[in-house]
């Protein structure tokens, strides 16, 4: 859904945390933005792309490149922003740590959107540790209005203290909306590039001085935090003082409005004098924070007081009002236990190109080392065609490693399954490694011509840029050949027979091979007509083979498949192709039920 940002109101508009960050960047003269999509951060760059043409904006091949590019733009004196999901900062960690030493010229905002509760992620890593480890100041909004305001302050802090600033959100902040008051854009001139190798080349001789500056900066920032207006004490009952930040602070203020609360918004470096004042005000201190005991451990070790936190709150999962109530010893609201109902797990869409690829793997009793994307759903029954996933790009390295452990035998029933965007992100180096180190496995690049799981973003292999501008299309076949792969074959994954014979040949080949399954994602493709699958009940023997596709448009009732004509995708005929009796066909004349 495209959301108009110009909804006329009483001066406020309803913005998500991500939209508010984009707005804050635009209002405060940001010139340039680059990112790689990742839930829950994606809408920051999407909003910039869609609504703020004054900001030059682009998708990068991965988070590391995004941060390097905005680092360069900052050297050139531009105000810049990048946004990534929490695990994206792992990829960008190398430039992140070095940019801390080198510092910012134009303001640098690095948004890390963490995902407690793992709504769409592989772990619950708490990226507040990155701020401390890289010695970069960190701001944490607790609603959309703050997300906008803190983006402005992050830019100012970045330029004043010559440091990148980490703006850390969580899914609940990024994807929750609240009213935001808008302001016009303030133009900030690009300062221009001034050569200064002693500040920008961290060879040991220069980096020693840089490190000293970083430590001085951290001390100065801690003092700045003592009077930072968003670090705020709400006075109340002084028997208990609660320290919280981000969405946890919102929960605390709701369930315990009478408490004395210190809401920390700048959470690295910590404002020691402000904390000292707060601690002296209250009898007992309790820390409420999702994730790791980041604030708790620092406060305990600095003040040597029993500031309790994780004794009462879980390390795992996302907090909610109930968690916070319980951890603060408040009575829970009466509520019924959740009803036991069948789950509704995410599924590959009807017509999804990946379904054909995984169905064939499953048919030939093969599986895959997997990667990050919609296609990770290939692990689900009935397809059951994925064995492993580590992180972006890892499918290829894992396939190579399995072969090193068990020889060719270990991988002759496996392929590395990786999407086009993920291959560009960090799969190419894995392929170089496989060829270089004498592997024999097969890499299946599932090219659906979009970055699908995050909602459909362009990438270097699609031939379009962020705003749809045409661009040079990365030639995946040529890249694979350049890596040294001799056999690179392209096939439509809905050509089940063709794909099966190609996979059998390539998996048997005693050298690295690449099979590109190329068919566009159903989200980006407007098929002609409204054909739906039609069952001939007389021919159907109820063998349930159509159910082996795991298509959401096919259900089974009274011994026969039933096609959901609203979901059935016109240009897909997988069910007709797998039916052994020809009982399913695609009727291209049939009008879809949906009257538009």
């Amino acid at each position, binding site marked *: *859904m495209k959301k*108009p940002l*110009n*909804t*006329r*109101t*009483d001066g*406020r508009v*309803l913005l998500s945390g991500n939209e508010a960050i984009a707005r804050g960047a635009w209002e405060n003269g940001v010139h340039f933005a680059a990112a790689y999509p990742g*839930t829950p951060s*994606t*809408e920051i760059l999407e909003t910039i792309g869609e609504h703020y043409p004054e900001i030059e904006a682009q998708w990068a091949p991965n988070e590391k490149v995004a941060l390097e590019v905005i680092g360069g733009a900052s050297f050139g004196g531009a105000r810049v922003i990048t946004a990534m999901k929490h695990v994206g900062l792992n990829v960008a960690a190398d430039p992140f740590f070095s940019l801390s030493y080198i510092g910012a010229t134009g303001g640098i905002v690095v948004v890390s959107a963490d995902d407690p509760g793992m*709504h*769409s992620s592989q772990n619950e890593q708490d990226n507040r540790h990155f701020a401390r480890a890289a010695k970069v100041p960190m701001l944490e909004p607790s*609603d959309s209005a703050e997300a906008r305001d803190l983006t402005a302050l992050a830019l100012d802090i970045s330029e004043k203290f010559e440091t990148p600033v980490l703006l850390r959100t969580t*899914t*609940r902040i990024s*994807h*929750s*909306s*609240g*009213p935001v008051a808008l302001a016009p854009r303030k133009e900030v001139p690009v300062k221009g590039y001034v050569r200064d190798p002693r500040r920008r080349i961290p060879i040991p001789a220069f980096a020693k001085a840089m490190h000293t500056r970083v430590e001085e900066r951290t001390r100065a920032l801690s003092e700045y935090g003592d009077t930072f207006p968003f670090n705020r004490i709400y006075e109340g009952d002084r028997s208990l003082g609660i320290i919280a930040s981000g*969405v946890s602070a*919102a*929960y605390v*203020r*709701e369930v315990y*409005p009478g408490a004395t609360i210190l809401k920390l918004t700048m959470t690295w470096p910590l404002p020691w004098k402000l904390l000292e004042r707060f601690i002296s005000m209250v009898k007992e201190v309790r820390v409420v924070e999702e994730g790791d005991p980041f604030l708790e451990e620092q406060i305990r070790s600095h003040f040597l007081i029993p500031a309790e936190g994780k004794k009462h709150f879980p390390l795992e999962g996302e907090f*909610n*009002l*109930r968690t916070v*109530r319980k951890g603060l010893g408040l009575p829970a*609201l*009466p*509520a*019924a*236990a*959740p*009803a036991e*109902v*069948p*789950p*509704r*797990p*995410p*599924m590959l*869409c009807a017509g999804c190109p990946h379904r054909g690829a995984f169905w064939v793997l499953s048919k030939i009793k093969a599986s895959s080392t997997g990667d990050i994307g919609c296609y990770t*759903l290939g692990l689900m029954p*009935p397809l059951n065609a994925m064995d492993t996933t580590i992180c972006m790009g890892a499918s290829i390295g894992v396939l190579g490693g399995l072969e090193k452990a068990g020889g060719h035998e270990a991988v002759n029933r496996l392929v590395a399954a990786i999407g086009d965007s993920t291959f560009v992100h960090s799969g190419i180096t894995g392929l170089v490694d496989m060829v270089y180190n004498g592997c024999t496995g097969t890499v299946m690049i599932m090219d659906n011509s979009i970055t699908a*799981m*995050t*909602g459909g973003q362009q990438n270097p292999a699609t031939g379009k840029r962020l705003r749809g501008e045409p661009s040079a299309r990365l030639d995946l076949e040529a890249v694979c050949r350049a890596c040294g792969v001799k056999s690179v074959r392209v096939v439509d994954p809905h050509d089940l027979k063709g794909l099966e014979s190609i996979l059998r040949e390539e998996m048997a080949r005693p050298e690295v091979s690449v099979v590109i399954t190329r068919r566009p994602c159903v989200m980006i493709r407007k098929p002609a007509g409204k054909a739906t699958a039609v069952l001939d009940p007389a021919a159907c023997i109820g063998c349930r083979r159509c*159910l082996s596709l795991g298509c*959401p448009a*096919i*259900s*089974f009732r009274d011994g026969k498949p039933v096609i959901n004509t609203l979901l059935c995708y016109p240009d897909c005929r997988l069910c007709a192709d797998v039916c052994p009796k020809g009982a399913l066909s695609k009727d291209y004349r049939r009008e879809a*039920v*949906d*009257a538009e």
Partner: protein
Amino acid sequence: MQSETTSILICGTGGQGILLASEIISTAAMLSGMDVRKSEIHGMAQRGGSVVSQVRFGKTVHSPMIEDGAADLLVSMEKLEALRWSHFLSPAGRALVCDLEIAPPSVSTGQAQYPDVLGELSARGVSFRLIDGFGEARTLGNLRVVNTIMVGAASVGLDLPDASWRDAMRGLIPEKALEVNFKAFDRGRELAG
């Protein structure tokens, strides 16, 4: 405080217009001068899965999430999803349920039964009203307005000025679809009135 905040949970399955419905409700509340929080989940959770959006409004709202047992209103575009989220309802809360069954995969493939949702809701003491959203949408000639019919039904008892609802829809729905959505909204109000 809880009692001064109205909490609405809107649920269903991917593609049913849940996000637009919650956007209309939260924008209408904001245009009525309230503080608002709306929370939803994107990403992997969207691929045909269960979708939920939470809206809270009042004088001052902090939490974007509703606590179990604290929702004043549950609006479900699908029957089973109403049952799935019913524990969020407060004892005095009520549910508006679109009379539509979408089988989850385990039911489609015959491994599980679609539950007796209405029976179970009654057994749980949930006060609910069934709305024939699809039938009504068909009568209006556009199956895409089921969500707006449900929003119209939800608007009854929310005590927001009519102008706020219209302005919210004007801001969020494309011009050419506005007329039928206004009709859908009015029809929803009639059904729940």
